[in-house]
């Protein structure tokens, strides 16, 4: 099981953490990856200039609600296959 940590600090929240968490959860379910990935919220990841911060493995990505699909395809679904 791999955690996808979405920052819910002030800046990230304002830039759309809520939508990103919901989108990622939906995408994971639609693609049948519930046994491989779990979306978690986390307090400030310390990279506020790159909000919204999403941590996967050791890497911190900048994801926006509009780019959540792209992030999922490239970094989650892509690596799961």
């Amino acid at each position, binding site marked *: 099981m791999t955690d996808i940590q979405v920052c*819910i*600090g*002030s800046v990230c929240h304002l830039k759309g953490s809520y939508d990103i968490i919901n989108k990622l959860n939906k995408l994971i379910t639609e693609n049948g990856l519930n046994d491989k990935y779990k979306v978690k*919220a986390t307090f400030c990841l310390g990279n506020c200039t790159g909000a919204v911060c999403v941590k996967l493995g050791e890497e911190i990505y900048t994801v926006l609600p509009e780019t959540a699909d792209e992030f999922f395809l490239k970094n989650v679904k892509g690596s799961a296959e």
Partner: protein
Amino acid sequence: MYFIDTSFDSLTKHGEELCGDHVEQARLRDSCILVLSDGLGSGVKANILATLTSKIAVTMLKEGSTLEETIDTVVHTLPVCNERHLAYSTFTIIKIYNDGRGYAAEFDNPFIFLIRNGENVPIERQKRILNGKTIYECSFTMDKDTLLVAVSDGVVHAGVGRSLDLGWQWENVDEYIKSIDTSFSALDITGNVLEQCRRLYEDEAGDDTTVLSVKIKEQETINLFTGPPKNPAKDYDVIKEILNAEGKIVVCGGTTANIVARSLGAELDVDVSTMTQELPPIGKIPGIELVTEGVITINKALDIMREYIDPGKNAAALKKLQDKNSASMLAAIIIERCERLNLWIGQAVNPAHQNPQYPMDFHFKMQQLEEFASVARQMGKEVNIVYI
């Protein structure tokens, strides 16, 4: 000092759109005033009488008028009913102080119920005649195990001619209230008694029916820690000082929460179920009362606190305190549980917040916390600010 937990609700007479009973409440620094009024008749006429009576009484008493002046004003203001040539509405005025002292002035409503651990507390009533009205005054003391319930006559008439020949008489209501679990909140008690009335009326109330409950809760010191300390080298010392301070600890701010968790060697878990579109979720750290995000949550909690001290919005604010989101939980701790508030304000500037795209910069944060302290002081809390 105690928090005064109040709740009131009504059943409207079957077939009427407006309730002829009305309750008004005002929160003062040292006390809470409640007025329950039952207007003559039912529907719109009764509603106007009851609303006028309770609003005038609360407004005047809040500003320091005497009972005589207040009643005189009410009597001379109420419009006279065309059919009955009467201007009439009952009232029960209740004033509870933060230290537990209580006072009631009762006119033509059923007498109040005062119960401690399932037993009636004896009340000595003094009779007074004011403007030709017989008014009963009494003083009493409440503690955390005391429950006060005031009702309109719709409660003691519940079930008349239906399930009960004589209605749900005062003694029966008294017995019923005594049997209610003493741990219930004011909200639960009001709901419970009103539900019993609804059942006795078989869903068609024969009269406007109102229940008002008051309980008091003990308060404590709350340490609200927000923002990392200015000098990171001192993080650990500062946190040790806060953890050793008397009272409960609330942490607001993501970075602050991370620092506290690290100092305690604990995990910082996030409870995603409390997340909403508007508000980030709460976190959990063992030994910490509440963990939230900072500036957004504090801003929303401050909105609720401002509403709470506004008499027109107080009832709506009390409902919001029940919600399971970060701002409601923070506001509930400050309003209900806090006697002394220690605000530990970290002065570190988050560079990412000094961004033109981000409207909540350092100065906004500082202003917001000063406002937070000011509203808490208006509630009668003792507030102490420590800049770290």
